[in-house]
């Protein structure tokens, strides 16, 4: 328990926050990697997921790819890419994107599939074009699930982003590996605590976003049902 207390003290020590390798800088790097991975993964996974959900085709492949990608060990991808691409951010970022895609892809098409077909039928009956059905019905209704998928992906990435330091990039992983290799428990545990804290904050933010993303009409309907 002493060591955990030392770790907390390490986190609070102002001298550890200064400079390009201070806690503040490393945390920003860490969050930056997470954000970048999520953006890239979304650019890839969301259109594909929406297409699968909207047309109903290719679901088997999407599921299979998601499943296989989920099984890919991140350390393996980081070391493999590292050997091929050299030090720096490119190698770990590839691994993080691969890590994030399955959750986002699954949430994207699941969000569309969860939309009651009666609603889509009604929209078509009213004369909405396919594009309008997509953007005005399916996307808003599928948004909460998509956000929960993003949330799941974000948590996985922020937790694994510590591996970026293995191949010379930055992030909070630097404290982990340096503390581990030099038996500086305070640094090692302190770095871990900060990662955990950031993960929790991120989780709460996404949870709030998920609730806020429920379309007003659906929220009202749900409240009506609950009575």
């Amino acid at each position: 328990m002493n060591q955990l207390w030392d770790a907390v003290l390490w986190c609070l020590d102002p001298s550890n926050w200064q400079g390009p390798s201070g806690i503040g800088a490393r945390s920003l790097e860490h969050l930056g990697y997470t954000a970048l991975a999520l953006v890239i993964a979304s650019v890839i996974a969301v259109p594909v997921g929406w297409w699968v959900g909207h047309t109903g085709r290719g679901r088997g492949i999407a599921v299979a790819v998601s499943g296989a990608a989920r099984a890919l060990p991140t350390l393996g991808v980081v070391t493999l890419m590292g050997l091929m691409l050299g030090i720096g951010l490119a190698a770990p970022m590839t691994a993080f994107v691969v890590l994030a895609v399955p959750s986002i892809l699954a949430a994207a098409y699941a969000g569309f599939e969860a939309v009651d077909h009666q609603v889509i039928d009604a929209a078509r009956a009213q004369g909405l074009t396919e594009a309008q059905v997509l953007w005005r019905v399916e996307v808003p209704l599928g948004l909460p699930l998509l956000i929960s998928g993003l949330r799941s992906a974000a948590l996985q990435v922020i937790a694994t982003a510590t591996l970026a330091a293995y191949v010379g990039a930055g992030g909070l992983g630097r404290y982990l590996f340096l503390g581990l290799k030099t038996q500086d428990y305070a640094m090692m545990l302190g770095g871990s605590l900060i990662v955990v804290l950031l993960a929790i904050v991120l989780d709460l933010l996404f949870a709030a976003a998920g609730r806020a993303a429920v379309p007003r009409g659906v929220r009202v309907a749900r409240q009506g049902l609950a009575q």
Partner: protein
Amino acid sequence: MRWILDNLPLIADRLWAHVATSLPAIVLALLISLPLGWLAHRYRPLNGPLLTGAGLMYALPSLPLFIVLPVLIGTGVRDAVNVVVALTLYGVALMVRSVADGLDGIPPEARNAATALGYRPLRRFLAVDLPLAGPVILSGLRVVAVSTVSLCTVGAVLGIPSLGMLFTDGFQRGILAQILTGIVLTVALALALDRLLVLAGRLLMPWARTPSRRAVRRSHRPGRSDQTDQTDQTDQAGQSVMPS
């Protein structure tokens, strides 16, 4: 590829170490999640805290957890106990929600019928609740199995034997074949476990076979939109079921 042929014993060693740490964790995760998920389902006040707690536990980064856990439970970092406990924690974090969701999805009519027939609560749980919640619990277990196998590799940077050591050693010596072997084996092991669980599900729950997606989707065409696919659910965490 010659590396693979020359190093089959090493590969076997690493594979065995990997299986020996991930399998117990998966089983333990299931066993621990059943009562916890039941608690979350049965007592509404506990539902929020338990599920949020599970979500937060999953948010714990793996490498730091492997390092912090020994401090809390008094083992060394490289102890098998440490790894299994850490992996179990993640498994439980993922599974509690599945168990709770599965139990939540049981039609009250079925429960009432069982009670009316004279089933005691424990027998009803085992003979009615669990089987009906089975498909959802199984889907959660599949996700846990895959993610546990994948997560087990991270410990290699701490010196914990697993397929992950093929990554660290291949990395140091620049042997791409070694890293690729590790990746392929990890994925293969995960997918093999997944398939085994699906088969087990079919054997244990033959009633839960769903019609193919095509049949269900055809029925969704205009005019017949009243059918829903009950076993194909997603939960709030965005963990989608992989239907068999």
